[in-house]
């Protein structure tokens, strides 16, 4: 096995663990952050698998935009509840 294979195995294990954490986490904001981490790690996985186009899109949309929109939605919900 080459170095890339070892990197992929560690990456896949991390992805599975963090994805599980994102589902099982009770606090919504932490869940969103875990989701962002899953996106970030999958960017690395896509680059290793030689798919730079998908990696670029995932980096911008998955870990940037979607996380921000989720956080703002949670903020708005919190404000509504505080009233």
């Amino acid at each position, binding site marked *: 096995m080459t170095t890339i294979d070892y990197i992929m195995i560690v990456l896949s294990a991390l992805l599975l663990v963090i994805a599980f954490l994102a589902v099982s986490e009770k606090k919504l904001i932490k869940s969103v952050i875990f989701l962002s981490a899953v996106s970030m790690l999958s960017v690395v996985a896509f680059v290793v698998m030689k798919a*730079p*186009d998908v*990696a*670029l*899109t995932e*980096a*911008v*949309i998955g870990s*940037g*935009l979607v996380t*921000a*929109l989720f956080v*703002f*939605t949670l*903020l*708005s919900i919190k404000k509504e509840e505080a009233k």
Partner: protein
Amino acid sequence: MKKLLGFILTIGLGLLIIFALEGNALFDDFGYANLDDRVSSHYITKGSDVDIIFGETVDPESGPANIVTSIVVDYRSFDTLGEVTVLFISALGVSLLLGSAVTQKRLSLDFKPNFMLRVASRALFGIIIMTGVYVTLHGHLTPGGGFPGGTMIASAMLLLYLADDQFRAKIKGFKILEGVAGSLYVVIGLLGLVVGTYFLQNFLPNGTVGDLLSSGIIPIIYILIGLKVGSEISGVIDNFLTEEEKQ
């Protein structure tokens, strides 16, 4: 008990998928598929017998140096039109739900942004916009293209919204830009129908592979997609970050 049942169900479904794919005649083992039977091999060789060389080959069947772009915007351009429509419909849904109130005001932040934060975010704004424009313009040469480039432009808007509690984009201009860019995409497709033989035909000369001004209408379409996606997602961000004004 519930969790255990869910676990067993997941394992069972996973095993079902693995066993169904094992030895299935429809799916060849890795490395054993006959690529000459597949349409993808035509896309990679661009239908020519000789190799495509970056910076040398003149006027191939499909211009872009980036294979993904040559599939997404040339061979399968009609699919991309559908994809843009899907994004448009989702943006429409968001604005119907969140942006229908007559008077709207900025969502107020809990903290007061200081001077440094505001100036630094303005400086960073330019850099992010430039990266987005670069990725969009070079979509036919390097990884990227209209969708990531447009989203980068929109995330620059998001940065301004985050760092400045007074900032509000002039959203009407974005809506006009979005409509014009989307219509021009269809108009270019119809031009292909008039000049050539089919919808979205590449009617301009392809030029040399690897030049910035090459591959006919593909850079034009990617710029239009970048403008459309950027203004659309900026509109969605604006909808998320404004709220109804209470009388």
